[in-house]
């Protein structure tokens, strides 16, 4: 079985350029093009936010939790996880705008959308990943702070790093 891919963030590489925010808004716009997206009404929204100050910053977006509080709490099942491998997605049609998900999300990555009647959240760029592309934020990141990779690969890389650190005598 192919393991699930997720977005890995390397905090040291983030320069807070906010290219991910902009690419996210464009990817979730009607026209999918920067020059026209900025003229749409309502304006498209980013699902990723760079938080932090000049000392430390981090792009924060939905972690697509396995045991997701937003899925559990949603009274209309608007937010759901179709299969164990798939990201947490939502069906705007059935959302009643109760905002419980916003309250329970431990990362604060669910926002009210511009209409104020429903919420908006990361869908891991399903439209793009189905075509074999990377999520827009990952594609836009100029420093490689955001990467889209299978979980087992992430773990493997960590083990390799731990090994080389151990060899070099770095305290873990």
């Amino acid at each position, binding site marked *: 079985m192919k393991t699930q891919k997720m977005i890995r963030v390397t905090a040291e590489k983030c320069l807070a*350029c*906010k*290219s991910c*925010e*902009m690419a996210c808004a464009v990817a979730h716009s009607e026209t999918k093009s920067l020059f026209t997206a*900025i003229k749409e009404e309502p304006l*498209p929204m980013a699902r990723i936010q760079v938080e932090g100050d000049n000392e430390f910053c981090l792009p924060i977006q939905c972690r697509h939790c396995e045991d997701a509080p937003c899925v559990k709490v949603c009274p209309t099942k608007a937010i759901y996880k179709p299969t164990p491998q798939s990201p947490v997605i939502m069906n705007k049609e059935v959302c009643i705008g109760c905002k419980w998900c916003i309250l329970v999300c431990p990362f604060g990555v669910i926002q009210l959308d511009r209409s104020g009647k429903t919420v908006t959240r990361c869908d891991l760029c399903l439209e793009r990943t189905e075509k074999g592309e990377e999520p827009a934020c990952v*594609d*836009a990141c100029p420093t490689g702070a955001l990467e889209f990779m299978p979980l087992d690969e992430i773990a493997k890389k960590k083990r390799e790093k731990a090994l080389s650190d151990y060899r070099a005598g770095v305290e873990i």
Partner: protein
Amino acid sequence: MDEKRRTSCTASQEMLTRAACDGIETAWDRHEAMEPQCGYGMLGICCRICAMGPCRINPFSEEEGRGVCGATADTIAARNLVRMIAAGAAAHSDHGRDVAHTLVLTADKKSEGYSIKDPVKLLAVAKEMGIKTGNRDLNEIAHDVGETAYNQFGQQEGELIFGHRAPKKQQEIWRKLNVFPRGIDREIVEVMHRTNIGVDCDYKNIIQGGMRAALGDGWGGSMIATDLQDILLGSPLPLRSQVNLGVFKDNTVNMVVHGHEPVLSDLIATITREPEMIEAAKEAGAEGITVGGICCTANEILMRQGFPIAGNFLQQELAILTGAIDAMVVDVQCIMPNLTEVSKRFHTKVITTSPKAKYPDVEHIEFHEENAYSTAKEIVKTAIDNFKNRDRSRVQIPHEKMDLVAGFTAENINWILGGKYRGTYRPLNDAIIAGRVRGVAAVVGCNNPKIEHDTGHYQLVKELLKKDVLVLETGCAAIACAKCGMLIPESIYEYAGKGLRETCEAVGIPPVLHFGSCVDISRLLMAAVGVVRERGCGDDISELPLAAAAPEWMSEKAVSIGFYAVASGIFTVLGVPFPVLGAPNLTRYLTEELENIVGARFAFESDPVKAARLMIEHIDKKRVERKMRPMLYAEGEGQKAEAKAEKEMVTP
């Protein structure tokens, strides 16, 4: 990416395939790796002007965003844009200043290898500058002309002399708007001052300052560069030559001259024709010397001496990829830093010559007018010496080359149209008024990997010609169309509408006229002035059935050119938008409101055919406003008649 989607030039496709096989990176690869490019940069809404920043405005916020100082998106984008104008105007004008310097040195007999090649133009310019001619020695006059031109740069008050060449009505608009340039440098400096933190914050006023600097380029720096080069190196006359990478030969010493200032390369080119050098090349085992140019240096030595063109901006790396270039001599502007990297993979020596432009690890043979001839000779010898290092097994010269006719100027087109005894624009004006020629288009500018190489120029011009628009070109646009075979008179049969074809046939010109380098866009301005002066088509430039386009622009110089064109009344379509789209009011000002202020506006359109249609719409609007006759022939009539005639010939 597929080579065919990168460029429509087959010689370039061949070299790109080679680059891919050899693992050599080109601008296209780097552009692809750079994507997606920074949205804030593309929209023009990041500001690095002071250290409270960097600031950026979120284009997806509903609230009006402001930088730390309070600057809005409009202020930020306007400041960034006019700084691009300042840089572009500085580049063109510094070129003009260097030519003025050479002219003064030559007049004082302190330069080596130069003389006054066009005394007629010298006297005409002297008269315009109010310099006494009479029985004075030519060198004395040239000295005064050079000094007067020099002083135009540092002039503090008054109006630029060449600005008075513009139609009276245009000048009045400039005075009213306070954009008549006082001095070339002054306006550039003022832009830099105004865009400092907390100075000019009204985007309309910022643009006014930018326009003034840009006009100082078009009717100042660039015009001085063109006119003084004509005096010093000779005025162009129509001539035949060839274009594309196929101009190089595997049995000759091959040199590329690349950049923009022709003062040195003109000498280099001349020297390669001297028997001594040809002999030296033969001793080295070659059969002669081939000089091919890239970018505007190419256009300059083509226009005056008929030397072939190797290619345009995006072909500079590809020229080295032929493996057949023994030396690439560069001066200033549009020279990619990556040439060094590509040249490391071959025997090619890149040689820098300007004290203003050095590249790490590159041989530098500095050029000064005082010993220009000796320097030029040294450079040619270096190329000949390097011939022996060429690895013949790695030479791959594409076979593509195309004939072309170049060498048109605002002065000589007068004689071509009017005849030997009575130079006049009358036949052109008559053809426009009668509806044979719809109007005139100026197609200029660079290459940009964002637009399929050469296709932007070719498709746009093709559409214009089909609709009977006479096209004047300069720069890399002219090189692109030359490669497509549009610059030979025979191309009227393939591309031109019936009315345009008849006119070109009668006069004996191609439908696309090569007017030279990018500073020679000043020649295009003077051609427009010529049409206005001839009367009947409009009382100022903005009333003419005339439009301009830069389908593949990329340089800051193009921003300056765009602004002096629009401020001179020429509707201008850009293939890549200015970085202003994140500033809604500024965008509206540039693309709509300017028309009621200076008589022309910008349009942004990346599809070349749609861009051509915008130009045609504008031309048609001007024709209606002047109550000109409807077009003589319906579109496609020429082609239909031709097809019918052909059919009749086949079936008697």
